[in-house]
């Protein structure tokens, strides 16, 4: 597996330098013995409109990049890969499109799903349809508790609150003497869950910490000047913010306008999702900033990551964020599972065999090794660190970089979140 990958890299790297345009998209007629030669259809659900559209777009771009490279190298067991892309929107409509992908397009697997509001509804449907579903970023949690402890067909993303846990663990390390904390997040489950979790973690490290203010503006608000004024009045030692979309950029800018972070520390658990919009002019050094599961500028990053970042920048003039990595991992793990199934039976594996092979499988993703826990939850690393201006970009990066595994920052299978946090030995 590893050598094949490196060979892929060489071929694709050479292709890229030559200027990959004229290559046939699909290498045909190389299907392995016992494998059908028609394309393998993969259904994709991506958010296309609204606040999370950039996230859906990043996931789709990561998937397309994978498909382009995989097809040049012969697809999956010689079968070319064909994507059938549908839109993730409301739970009801997305469930309908999900059924359409399976019943009408006859896809082998469905990948994607970002909003937990949607994927919470998709989980039971995946079980009913008996086709594997791998989620990019959506969970089947209600609040912070799992609703599907033993799924057969559904594979879920990391728990939503992991970045709040990592930030809570790192806060006392980087910010000494914190006594009062204010929080701001979007007024829906993610914002509330992150704040609740962050408080629980921080209380373990700083038992007498006081939470002096919590603000939950609606998703989509573009004016936080009044919120910032309220935060200034509350005079906390630290502000925790779980914004992840354009609102992270906006609050950073409006905070800079009144010098908010001259008088307090800042923790942005998830703003790395829009990292290249956090310009140095208004984003101070010394904030704790989370990049979710992929940090584009990781000096210890793999050759794969470096190539991806380079080609992404060349194609879209942006630096990629974490959703690319979730998406890449999803489809790469599917390929690995099919190959694993084939190795056992010398036939294209059935959907049930693919699901079996996926459990516990580990593959190289953009960010490094990632795997599926036996109960179908993604395992990976989270990247957070302290913002710095010492780089060649016009936006902030992080140094030092903290890499925290879901092995220590995600509740184990079957456990309750707050009980688990309260049981830590510190």
């Amino acid at each position, binding site marked *: 597996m590893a050598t094949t990958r490196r060979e892929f890299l060489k071929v694709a790297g050479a292709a890229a330098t030559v200027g990959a345009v004229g290559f046939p998209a699909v290498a045909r007629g190389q299907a392995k013995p016992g494998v059908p030669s028609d394309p393998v259809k993969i259904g994709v659900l991506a958010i*296309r409109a609204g606040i999370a559209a*950039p996230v859906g777009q990043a996931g789709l771009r990561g998937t397309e990049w994978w498909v382009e490279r995989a097809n040049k190298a012969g697809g999956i067991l010689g079968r070319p890969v064909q994507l059938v892309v549908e839109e993730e929107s409301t739970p009801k409509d997305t469930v309908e499109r999900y059924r359409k992908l399976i019943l009408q397009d006859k896809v082998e697997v469905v990948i994607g799903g970002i909003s937990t509001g949607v994927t919470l509804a998709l989980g039971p449907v995946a079980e009913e349809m008996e086709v594997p579903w791998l989620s990019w970023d959506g969970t089947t949690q209600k609040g912070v508790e799992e609703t599907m402890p033993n799924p057969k067909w559904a594979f879920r993303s990391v728990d939503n609150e992991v970045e709040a846990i990592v930030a809570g663990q790192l806060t006392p390390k980087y910010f000494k003497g914190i006594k009062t904390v204010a929080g701001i997040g979007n007024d829906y489950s993610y914002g509330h869950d992150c704040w609740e979790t962050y408080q629980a973690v921080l209380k373990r490290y700083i038992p007498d910490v006081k939470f002096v203010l919590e603000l939950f503006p609606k998703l989509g608000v*573009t004016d936080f000047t009044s919120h910032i004024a309220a935060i200034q009045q509350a005079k906390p030692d630290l502000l925790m913010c779980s914004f992840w979309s*354009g609102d992270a950029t906006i609050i950073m*800018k409006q905070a*800079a306008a009144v010098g908010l972070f001259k008088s307090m520390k800042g923790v942005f658990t998830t703003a790395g999702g829009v990292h290249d919009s956090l310009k140095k002019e208004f984003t101070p050094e010394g904030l704790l900033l989370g990049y979710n599961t992929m940090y584009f500028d990781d000096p210890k990053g793999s050759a794969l990551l470096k190539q991806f970042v380079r080609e992404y920048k060349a194609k879209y003039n942006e630096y990629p964020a974490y959703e690319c990595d979730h998406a890449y991992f999803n489809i790469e793990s599917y390929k690995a599972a099919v190959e694993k199934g084939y190795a056992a039976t010398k036939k294209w594996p059935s959907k049930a065999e693919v699901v079996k092979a996926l459990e516990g499988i580990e593959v190289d993703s953009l960010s490094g090794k990632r795997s599926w826990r036996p109960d179908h939850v993604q395992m990976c690393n989270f990247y957070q660190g302290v913002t710095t201006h010492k780089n060649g970009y016009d936006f902030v990066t992080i140094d030092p970089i903290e890499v925290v595994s879901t092995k220590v920052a995600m509740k184990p299978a079957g456990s309750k979140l707050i009980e688990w946090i309260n049981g830590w030995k510190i």
Partner: protein
Amino acid sequence: MGGVFHAAILFLVAAGLQLVFGVQKIFNLACGSFYALGAYTGVSAVAFFTGHGGPPTLFVIPLALGGLAVGLVGLVVERGLLRFVYDRDETFQLLLTFALVLMLEDLIRLTWGTAPASTGGLYLAYGQVRLLGATVPVYNLIVIAASLAIALGMGFTLTRTAFGRIIRAAADNREMAEALGVDMRGVYARVFTLGTMLGTLGGALVIPATAAMSEMGIELIVEAFAVVVIGGLGSMRGAFLGALVVGVLRSMAISIYPELEMLLIYLIVIAVLLWRPRGLFGAAAA
């Protein structure tokens, strides 16, 4: 103070809404989309300006010009679409402007992409001042002043100039104005373009302080409706007062009891609807 800045922007959009309703009796749902369109155009105009060596401190000039220029889309919309539905039922007019909302949102997404667009750090190009114990970006003060100047200019135009008299006459009694020789086609085209320009200018002016997102118009139009209900449909003074009430109260609510933020505005809307169904200045026409 943050509330006043928000109110200044809100006033521009609501004033555009009021002007168009006052004269043309069309409730323009697309005013929020014009606001978003102005925001994106502002970002592009500033990027073009600084990209061609323009001094960053003069960025407000291309910003405002870009915002005003894209307002001309109002002329296209009025001549190309709206004029066909003036004599139809109000439902058609609402449907048409709602269709515009959807189309403009897609147009924005196709043109500028899905990622938020912003003017980077130019917001702080003019520095900050201490005012009443709070730090306020000078840019906010410029926008508040510009909005006030526009309000005064509108007041002057409506009450003291020939064009203003024609507008008020047309708002009061269209048939009579037409009978007296007023070219209503020209008046409608100009009024709608002016109304659109107020919205696009509002969008352009807000953008340095925030970032443009394709659905930003939807967020704003809800507040603009509240402004219109509080101030009274079709009234310019109503738009001014309504914007101030909504902007400042929202800001106060966040400081005092954040959960009340949106609720408070609707409570006032309900109160106004119960006690003064025509709004605070409802009786007065544009």
